[in-house]
């Protein structure tokens, strides 16, 4: 029976499979019940990823396996096929599919709607990006082409979900068979799905990554509250569905190593162990990924080779891109080495037919075959708790399996059949011989070499003629080969030959262009197997020559030295390698009054300054790193009070007038090259702020510029909590075309504050009052809903959160201080504050700090009266004054900006330096540790080549927590390494191009830079 099925590439579904269980459907005519039992004998059965029966029998019926065993009695009436040593594997499972899902309509930019108006009519939640009510099992429909594409790649089971929204509802587990949908569903609600992207939602909010995090967190809190107060509050489809999702495994689409970690953090807060859909770059932070102790779904869409032939074009390709191109296929092997459980997904692959080929590539890059098979079968089944149904070939499980000629991971393995839910799909004729190999063509009394290679379904033929090697068109079908080739410019030949398996010879007739016939014989000289054998040893010997992971994964990152790892957190240990540093003979700007110490030594132990004195005897501290600072100036590290570097996914959550719930701490990007650039300008610490699009922006994050560390390690330890406020033209959308978001005037801004603070007071009281109730009383009263936005405002009222307020003109500065006084809170810092000099006395009375630009003005109306004397005047009046950057470039030259206060307003040099060191430390409430060069302070220091306030000064070394993060000598080495590493990979890419690999032109992408006014367009 099987032998008749010789059509290659045409998927045939046995008629029987279609009717088996359609019991609820009426039939047209007499029903045709077929319950064939199949028995496959003499097969190498891979029962699961670790169990193989070398010569076994597989018996199945009606889509389910009856038995897999070495010996078994073949049931009566079974259709028996002798597989003659062919291999049977369980079908692969893809947990991250959108197979059969309807297309998602993308939101059109500019068509975003006004806040709080959910376009979904009905009793849904407020934000359409929360689609917890989506049931994928109701949406999915059979798609023959896509199903075939998946099965051809070995995928027989998918967990399909709609890839739309931050909460995406549940996914359905499906057999990828050509059946009625009713028969394909394995599990209707198999998992819940989450992401950071709002998808088709037309609502402005959230418009940034930080907003997406906040919305998801708030949704978790809302759903908890909804559950606990059921029937006491509103009815809400979205929250109800969200709560129902919580009993399912949760899959989070993070798509990038850092987003993986962001998702994990949310999971921790709510006790959810996400299965993380990664980005394939997890190897770049493998220790952090391992420390999450979570399961991962990883894609195999490796970057395409780039065209780097032109050296100028090649400059547009970043080192990170080059390295990722080289290392991406090693991601899975790295996961394995670090014991991280993972499964593969074909998602993100443009060409799904590359799935298996790319998994093989992972194996070539060090992944073991066992783990590869586990990641394709057992792991995905196990992750969602269906290991008793799919992922192995045991009694009672779905009859989902692949038949191959040999090890499925062999380069030339042929997939003959893929059975899904007991239905057959044919990809190659199982009885057709493997005709690939080298041949001798005897024709017209001549003798030519012929090579047949490639895929069985699509043979690549070559023939060596007298003149040259040329293409031989070759089609093998129904045992007959049809061939043609161009003999020379005048003549070509067409041939037709019958294959004789026994002698491995084609025999037949050919015809020349002129019509003359000839006889030919094509005789095999060596088979494909022997070709492969010849090739393999070479491949095995070819040690993978790929570079090392850089921390961070960027130019100016560093690899962990060979002898330092790989340990858990090896990088962290190595980066903190200096137990002690002794700086000799420096001119020290202590920031202690006006004191400048000449020719003094500073001794640092474990990140702290322990001694400052002249002539500390270095011989006592043999183990300490010694720095000769003769002729150099040592100052406290520069602190940038107002920065937007090192942030991912937007700095402005601009859709709402109050976005107090968003946290910049959620979106710290430790790979921003501007961190390193600013280190080269002596910056050690920065406050990363939300933008200025809203009267109440988001919560800020103070970081230390520990280049190479991860986001969490960069965060200032126990950092004081801050929030960004903003006044002026930006928050009233004054420089745009105008819109209907309240406020549009400075008048409205005041009312936003008054409203929010009064609500926060009430909220606090409600929370406190409710907490006081007895358990019994609580039963009948709905608990107040936890509101992340009001939490942040309540923290301000409690003095636990400080305000940094973007401000320009005196009227509004005055206003906010009045609002603050009347509602009993304090404005910690006015930032920008270009007209601060006009209300310096009031600011002093209020106790506010000032953080200003040195000399910016004349870029909009509200800065026309900005004067460069501002910082000096504020300082003279007694306001603690800082100079900030708000600019990734200027952040590198804050010492110069501070010097402007000497020119404009005559501050002394020590006063000027404090504007960018001690004063911001004070404003940020971290001056207990940093801002001065004194015994007991943390060693955040900069060694300058010249007077630090001179335009001629350069930072020579930048030290944070007693470790050297920038060193001009090291910098030169890093530059050299960048050049070498780029050149090494580029020569590999050139070799790829010469080999004929498809290459794509570099795109010249550049990272985003943020300022206060940046609005991220999704």
């Amino acid at each position, binding site marked *: 029976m099987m032998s008749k099925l010789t059509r290659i590439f045409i998927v045939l579904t046995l008629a029987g499979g279609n009717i088996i269980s359609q019991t609820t459907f009426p039939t047209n005519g007499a029903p045709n019940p077929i319950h064939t039992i199949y028995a496959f004998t003499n097969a190498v059965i891979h029962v699961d990823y670790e169990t193989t029966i070398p010569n076994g029998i597989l018996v199945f019926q009606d889509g389910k396996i009856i038995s897999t065993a070495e010996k078994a009695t073949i049931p009566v009436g079974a259709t028996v096929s002798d597989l003659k040593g062919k291999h049977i594997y369980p079908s692969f499972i893809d947990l991250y599919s959108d197979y059969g899902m309807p297309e998602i309509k993308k939101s059109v930019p500019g068509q975003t709607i006004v806040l709080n108006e959910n376009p979904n009519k009905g009793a849904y939640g407020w934000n359409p990006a929360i689609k917890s009510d989506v049931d994928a099992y109701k949406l999915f429909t059979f798609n023959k082409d896509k199903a075939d594409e998946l099965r051809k790649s070995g995928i027989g089971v998918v967990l399909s979900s709609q890839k739309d929204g931050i909460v995406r509802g549940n996914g359905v587990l499906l057999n990828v068979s050509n059946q009625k949908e009713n028969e394909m569903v394995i599990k209707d609600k198999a998992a819940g799905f989450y992401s950071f992207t709002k998808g088709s939602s037309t609502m402005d909010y959230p418009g940034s990554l930080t907003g997406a995090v906040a919305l998801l967190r708030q949704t978790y809190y809302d759903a908890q509250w909804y559950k606990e107060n059921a029937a006491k509050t509103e009815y809400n489809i979205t929250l109800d569905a969200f709560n129902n999702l919580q009993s399912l495994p949760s899959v989070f689409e993070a798509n990038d190593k850092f987003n993986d970690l962001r998702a994990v953090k949310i999971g921790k807060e709510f006790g959810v162990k996400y299965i993380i859909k990664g980005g394939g770059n997890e190897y770049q932070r493998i220790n952090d990924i391992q420390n999450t102790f979570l399961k991962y779904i990883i894609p195999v869409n490796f970057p395409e080779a780039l065209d780097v032939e032109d050296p100028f074009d090649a*400059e*547009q390709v*970043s*080192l990170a891109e080059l390295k990722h191109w080289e290392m991406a296929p090693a991601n899975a092997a790295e996961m394995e080495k670090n014991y991280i459980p993972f499964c593969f997904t074909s998602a993100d692959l443009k060409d799904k037919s590359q799935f298996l080929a790319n998994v093989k590539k992972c194996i070539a890059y060090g992944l073991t075959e066992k783990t590869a098979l586990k990641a394709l079968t057992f792991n995905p089944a196990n992750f969602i708790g269906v290991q008793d149904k799919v992922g192995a070939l045991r009694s009672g499980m779905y009859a989902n399996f692949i038949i191959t000629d040999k090890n499925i991971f062999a380069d030339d393995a042929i997939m003959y059949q893929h059975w899904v839910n007991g239905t057959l799909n044919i990809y190659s004729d199982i009885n057709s011989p493997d005709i690939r190999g080298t041949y001798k063509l005897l024709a017209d009394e001549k003798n030519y070499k012929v090579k047949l290679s490639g895929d069985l379904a699509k043979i690549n033929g070559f023939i060596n003629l007298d003149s040259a090697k040329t293409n031989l068109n070759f089609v093998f079908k129904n045992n007959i080969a049809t061939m043609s080739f161009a003999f020379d410019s005048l003549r070509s030949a067409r041939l037709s030959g019958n294959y004789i398996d026994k002698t491995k010879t084609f025999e037949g007739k050919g015809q020349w262009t002129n019509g003359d016939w000839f006889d030919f014989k094509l005789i095999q000289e060596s088979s494909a197997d022997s070709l492969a054998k010849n090739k393999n040893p070479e491949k095995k010997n070819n040690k993978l020559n790929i570079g090392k992971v850089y921390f961070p994964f960027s*130019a*100016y990152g560093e690899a962990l030295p060979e002898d330092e790892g790989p340990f858990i957190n090896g990088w962290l240990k190595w980066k903190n390698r200096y137990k002690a540093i002794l700086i000799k003979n420096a001119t020290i700007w202590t920031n202690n009054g006006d004191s400048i110490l000449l020719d003094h030594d500073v001794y640092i132990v474990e990140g702290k300054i322990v001694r400052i004195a002249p002539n500390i005897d270095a011989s006592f501290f043999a183990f300490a790193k010694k720095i000769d600072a003769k002729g150099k100036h040592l100052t406290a590290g520069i602190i940038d009070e107002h920065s937007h570097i090192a942030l991912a996914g937007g700095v402005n959550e601009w859709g709402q007038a109050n976005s107090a719930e968003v946290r910049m701490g959620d979106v710290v990007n430790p790979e921003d*090259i*501007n961190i*390193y650039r600013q280190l*080269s300008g002596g910056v050690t610490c920065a406050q990363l702020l939300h933008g200025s699009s809203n009267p109440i922006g988001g919560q800020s994050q103070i970081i230390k510029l520990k280049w190479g560390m991860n986001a969490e390690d960069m965060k200032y330890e126990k950092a004081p909590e801050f929030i960004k406020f903003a006044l002026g*033209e930006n928050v009233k959308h004054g420089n745009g075309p105008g819109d209907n978001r309240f406020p549009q005037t400075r008048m409205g801004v005041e009312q936003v504050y008054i409203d929010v603070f009064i609500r926060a007071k009430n909220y606090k009281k409600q929370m406190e009052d409710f907490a006081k109730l007895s358990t019994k009383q609580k039963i009948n009263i709905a608990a107040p809903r936890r509101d992340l936005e009001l939490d942040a405002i309540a923290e301000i009222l409690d003095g636990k959160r400080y305000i940094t307020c973007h401000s320009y003109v005196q009227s509004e500065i005055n206003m906010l201080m009045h609002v603050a006084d009347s509602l009993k809170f304090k404005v910690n810092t006015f930032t920008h504050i270009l007209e601060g*000099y*006009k209300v*310096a*006395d009031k600011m002093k009375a209020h106790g506010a700090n000032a953080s200003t630009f040195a*000399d*910016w*003005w*004349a*870029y*909009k*109306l509200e800065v*026309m*009266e900005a*004067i*460069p*004397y501002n910082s000096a*005047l504020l300082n*003279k009046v007694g306001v603690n004054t800082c100079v900030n950057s708000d*600019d*990734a*470039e*200027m952040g590198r*030259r804050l010492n*110069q900006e501070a010097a402007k206060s*000497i*020119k*404009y*307003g*005559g501050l002394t*040099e020590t006063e000027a330096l404090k504007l960018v060191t001690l004063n911001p430390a004070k404003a940020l409430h971290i001056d207990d540790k940093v801002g001065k060069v004194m015994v007991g302070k943390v060693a955040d220091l900069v060694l300058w*080549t010249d007077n630090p*306030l*001179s*335009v*001629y*000064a*350069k930072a020579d070394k930048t030290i944070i927590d007693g470790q050297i993060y920038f060193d001009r000598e090291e910098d030169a080495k890093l530059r050299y390494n*960048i050049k070498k590493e780029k050149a090494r990979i580029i020569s590999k890419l050139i070799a790829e191009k010469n080999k004929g690999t498809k290459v794509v032109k570099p*795109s*010249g*992408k*550049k*990272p*985003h*830079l*943020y*300022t206060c*006014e*940046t609005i991220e367009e999704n």
Partner: protein
Amino acid sequence: MKRKNYYILCFVFLVGIIISQNNLPSSPKVWKHVILINGTAHIGNGQIIESSYVAFLDGKIEMVSESKGIRLNPAAYDTVIDITGKHIYPALISTNNILGLQEAEMIRPTSDFNEVGFINPHVRSLIAYNTDSKILPTVKTNGVLYTQCTPRSGLISGSSSIMATEGWNWEDAVLKADDGIHVNFPKSIQKNGWWGETAPSTKNNKYDEEILVLNKFFEDAKAYCNSPAGSLESNLRFEAMRGIFSGSQNLYLHADYVKDIILSVNFAKKYEVKKPVLVGGKDSWKTTKLLKDNSIPVMLCRINDLPDYAEDDVDILFRIPALLQNDSVLFCLQLAGDMEAMQTRNLPFLAGETSAYGLTKEQALQSVTLNAAKILGIDSKLGSIELGKIASLVISDGDLLDIKTNNVILAFISGKPIKLINDQQLLYEKYKTKYGVK
């Protein structure tokens, strides 16, 4: 009888800025023949005279020398100013700048540098130059006394003019009208984004079309300009190009990306442009030989900018001047970019910075004085303190190029002392008084 004035400048550091014309005699006569004695003269061509005599007559420099060994005859001068311990510099020249054409970036009515259309060689910045701009006084006070007032936009933005930062009106302020025409050479890579944010760069889809339009215009213009005057129907755009082909005007080719630079040089050669100048040239250091071989000078992009690529040396922009200097490419500094009008006052510090990255201090000074004058074709008049040149001079308390010492106490444009006061200083004084602080 000649009135003789003898001043010893011993200005208090803080009060220095308050010097205004009112402190000095107002009769124009007394500024006819002036000598500045014993100051450290930074000539602008690389030389320094530690203790110098610099004299000018009728606005022209008539003496520059060491003070040692020369007997001064004070009676020969109507004004003698002792500037012992002070520094004297040639006036700083800002190039490629919209100063005077804009008051505030975000207030559209104040902008006069972006004309509509792609090919506007006939558009002239000169007449839009606002001598009453509030920004000009804040620039003068730091030593920048001239600016190349430059239009932007389109493929050909129009002609620039070299203006003094002080004057009753544009006619009074102009030093050289219509010094050249500005071509924004088509960018093969389009840099997207806006203020402070660089969005991903993309291929410029209109590139081929722009190259075509530009070439067509130059071909037509050249043919027109080669025909006898009046033989063809008058065309404003073509007429404006005569100086480019005759060599009386510079052709400013704005290009940053290395391939665009190479193509713009080829373009200039193709049309036999006599005086091409590269403006921007962020990648100019990558192709110095081509620039040198073709004698094409560079008005270098703002060096206080971030490198294009993460891989670039973090200080590459600061080092470009030294790289150009070493390869003998003539260049000057400019600071086109965000808030450029306001930033013009930081031009001296931009120059200072280059000397932390490979130039000598005098070479740094040259990059905003003599080099600029040479490129603009006005070095017979400006750019250095040399005989016969216009007496436009800046006297600073300390090193003019370092922020903390730049303190301009006296400055002359064409031999006339200028008012060194701006509104910002007045506001400062006003609020100092309010708070009773010094």
